[in-house]
């Protein structure tokens, strides 16, 4: 579903992604972990070209990511993204947040878009919030609305960039539950997170990044119980004791 080959990215002089190769199969859930600043977000953003890499290629469902214009917009429509800071459209109700892109990008009629939106809101457990503005919701509710918004495009892949990092601890669970449900339904997912419990439970594969490189990857049980590299052992020792 996703095929990344030889990806290199620099911010000015700063080499933030180094020779990244990554395959994600259809239905696979890949959790990306690693210390802050290791390039996880940048990798995620390269997957739907919110960032452009100087070298290498990203192929989504057999189609090389186009550079710009309508083609690029079409690719992005197929790749859902959930941000750490939710980024719900502040001036639109939750329902309007969800119906905007299906109507404008996919050409879905309003009644159909609203029907889908209500189904999705019910699925993420905030069916009663449809008419509210994002600012009236809790963080956990906003993030679930953002997930529903991405799902409304019927994406082939969902990217999550630290979806629970901006949440109060008591709200982390409700968002992870939604994500676990998605994974169980067979959604192809790339999830950047520090939630090791989620990684163990829902991931098919864990990818460990440091200094812009993929240092190690493997099945969650194997990775967490027997990390192969010092960097990974170091990192796990730090996050698991805290």
């Amino acid at each position, binding site marked *: 579903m996703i095929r990344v080959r030889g990806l290199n990215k620099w911010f000015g002089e700063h080499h933030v992604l180094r020779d990244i190769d990554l395959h994600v199969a259809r239905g696979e859930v890949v959790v990306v972990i690693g210390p802050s600043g290791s390039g996880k977000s940048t990798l995620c953003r390269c997957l739907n070209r919110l960032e452009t890499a100087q070298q290498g290629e990203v192929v989504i469902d057999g189609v090389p990511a186009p550079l710009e214009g*309508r083609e690029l*917009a079409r690719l*992005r*429509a197929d790749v859902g993204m959930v941000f750490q800071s939710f*980024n719900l459209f502040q*001036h639109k109700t939750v329902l309007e947040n969800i119906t*905007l892109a299906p109507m404008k990008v996919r050409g879905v009629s309003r009644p159909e878009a609203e029907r889908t939106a209500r189904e999705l809101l019910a699925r993420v457990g905030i069916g009663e919030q449809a008419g509210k*503005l994002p600012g009236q919701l809790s963080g956990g509710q906003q993030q679930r609305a*953002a997930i529903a918004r*991405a799902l409304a495009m019927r994406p082939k892949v969902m990217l999550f960039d630290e979806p629970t990092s901006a949440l109060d601890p008591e709200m982390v669970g409700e968002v992870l539950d939604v994500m676990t449900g998605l994974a169980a339904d067979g959604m192809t997912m790339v999830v950047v997170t520090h939630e090791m419990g989620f990684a163990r439970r829902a991931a098919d594969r864990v990818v460990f990044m440091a200094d812009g490189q993929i240092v190690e990857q493997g099945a969650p049980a194997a990775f967490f119980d027997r990390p192969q590299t010092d960097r990974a052992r170091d990192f796990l020792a730090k996050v698991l004791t805290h």
Partner: protein
Amino acid sequence: MSVLLDHLPVIWQGLVVTLQLTVASFLGAAVLGVLVTAMRVSPVGVLRALGTAYVEAFQNLPLLVLLVLAFFGLPEIGIKAEPLVTAIVVISIYEAAYIAEALRSGVNSVGKGQGEAARALGLTFRQSLWYVILPQALRTVVQPLGNIIIALTMNTLLAGAISVVDLTEEAKRINLVEAQPIPIFVGVGLIYALIASGVGFVTGRLERRLVMVR
């Protein structure tokens, strides 16, 4: 001020012309201002440069000079238009620079994540701007826009220089007959002040209604 009442029909005519100038120029300036703002935040470097050049140019030229240039210059290149139309076009082009500047500060106040989320959903640049960024930007610049409209209203009297007979021009004409400048121009000044406070009232209301929960 009874001198004004004696000339009420003429004053009314002048006021209608002033309002025509104001409303039409504002609409023109709004459309153009949005276009220039879109250029200034566009991903295409050339468009950004053009947009910036536009704003810089028209903020640094006197409106009166532009009006006179257009009035005498356009016929030279074979474009003939009514003075009123010429005035509306020139004032629109001029004020668009100020509207674009206000809108851009509004756009800058909208979080970067809003545009990213829009693009991540597959909206094109234009759709992101129109459905997500500009509606939020507008809410933050209602007050500055109101001030631009008020300044625009005052600026319309420069159209008198190219033979448009607006409120101020009518006042001058009445004064030629009556020779009572103080009451005439105090009265006319009050009419401008009334328009300005009307605009201020509306934008004030609008601003309170559009306040967003964040």
